[in-house]
């Protein structure tokens, strides 16, 4: 089934969320796609608790508060969110609409695409060792999709955050788990930490102090992980290594869409914030133009101007009458009806 909307927004960070609002004011409907499991982008993923001081009228606001408020502001326009997935492909249809396909095989068609992808998609941070390609496909899991392949196996989980601790606790039920971290302190939820320590006490989980030094491929489908602690190196033979070193941002498939790029940023004009491909727009940290500042505030401005141009693509026969939210009865009805 192919879903249909007016505009597809790629990225549910602050600028993508505000774009829903600006487009909504012009009666333009939106679907929003994001690779994270929640809206908010960097604000929610990297610094939910850190205060931001340069949002107009907000003396101080945390990343999470800003996200929550933007979600509430966008809500009256009934956006549809597609989370936990990345846009893999875009193609022009005969109807002149864009067909967008995601990594979860969702298909959506729309008249415009708005790229509000910040510094790209959040993806697991990979081990910076060379020649890992072969092993990465077979023995290194940066995410657990299918638990059953791990049953009865020897696993080495690396990291000290929530993912590392949660998977250590969970997988200890079905596999031989060793958790490795560079110190015996963890920045995970206290509950998960005490559970892990309890499992270690009962010898259900082993803990290893150290860091990944090197990885070698073995012939028996296993890998040898060399673990370094201070200057001492030990080696471990395991079936799978599960490294959880947080997330990093990557431009990903967007790089292959034929847009004019400059150092991994998308070039736009400063009137419409349209890319080199008509009806594809780029707003927020992902775009570049002379004088660009990577501020949330700039992204908000870009969203408003982008929406004006999207209107022409979405309603080519209608006249766009400029209205203020303070005075338009029509807008009040829309904003208060949710």
């Amino acid at each position, binding site marked *: 089934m192919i879903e249909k909307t007016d505009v597809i927004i790629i990225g549910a960070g602050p600028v993508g969320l505000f774009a829903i609002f600006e487009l909504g004011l012009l009666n333009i409907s939106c679907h929003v796609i994001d690779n994270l499991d929640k809206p908010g982008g960097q604000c929610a993923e*990297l610094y939910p608790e850190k205060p931001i001081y340069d949002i107009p009228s907000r003396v101080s606001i945390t990343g999470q508060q800003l996200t929550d408020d933007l979600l509430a502001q966008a809500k009256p326009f009934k956006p549809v969110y597609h989370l936990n997935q990345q846009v893999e492909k875009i193609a022009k249809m005969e109807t002149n609409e864009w067909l967008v396909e995601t990594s979860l095989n969702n298909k959506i068609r729309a008249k415009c695409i708005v790229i509000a992808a910040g510094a790209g998609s959040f993806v697991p941070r990979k081990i910076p060792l060379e020649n890992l390609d072969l092993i990465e496909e077979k023995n290194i899991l940066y995410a657990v999709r299918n638990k059953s392949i791990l049953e009865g196996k020897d696993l080495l989980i690396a990291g000290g955050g929530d993912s590392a601790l949660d998977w250590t606790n969970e997988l200890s039920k079905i596999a031989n788990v060793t958790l490795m971290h560079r110190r015996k302190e963890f920045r995970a939820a206290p509950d998960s930490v005490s559970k892990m320590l309890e499992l270690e006490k009962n010898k259900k989980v082993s803990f290893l102090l150290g860091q990944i030094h090197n990885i070698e491929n073995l012939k028996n489908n296993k890998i040898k992980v060399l673990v370094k602690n201070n200057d001492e190196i030990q080696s471990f033979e395991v079936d799978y290594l599960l490294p959880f070193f947080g997330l990093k941002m990557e431009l990903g498939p967007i790089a292959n869409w034929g847009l004019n790029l400059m150092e991994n940023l998308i070039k736009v004009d400063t009137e419409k914030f349209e890319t080199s491909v008509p009806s594809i727009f780029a707003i927020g940290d992902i775009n570049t133009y002379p004088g660009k500042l990577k501020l949330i505030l700039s992204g908000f401005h870009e969203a408003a101007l982008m929406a004006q141009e999207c209107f022409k693509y979405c309603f080519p026969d209608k006249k766009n009458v400029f209205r203020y939210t303070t005075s338009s009865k029509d807008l009040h009805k829309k904003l208060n009806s949710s």
Partner: protein
Amino acid sequence: MKIRVIDRDGNKHELEGDPNSTLMEILRDADLDIEAACGGCCACATCHVYINDQWLEKISPKDDDEESMLDQAFDVRNTSRLSCQISLSDELDGIELEIAKE
């Protein structure tokens, strides 16, 4: 003030520092491939550097936040720091460091 940097390929650079900046800002603006994804609020670990032993004690020690973020970095050593958490001062004129692998 001078900052002496060894990049990921082993090349040496001498950068002009500024006591009003953080070390990360100088490295980033010199295009030394420091990602600094979070912009300097100690919320990622993409500005990881190794400080030369002799300079380490002149820098204010790591706080818990920085220690926690270093958990996401690879090959963390005793000399590891996140460069966004190091405010430059004239005392650090000549500081030597190496950019960690990413």
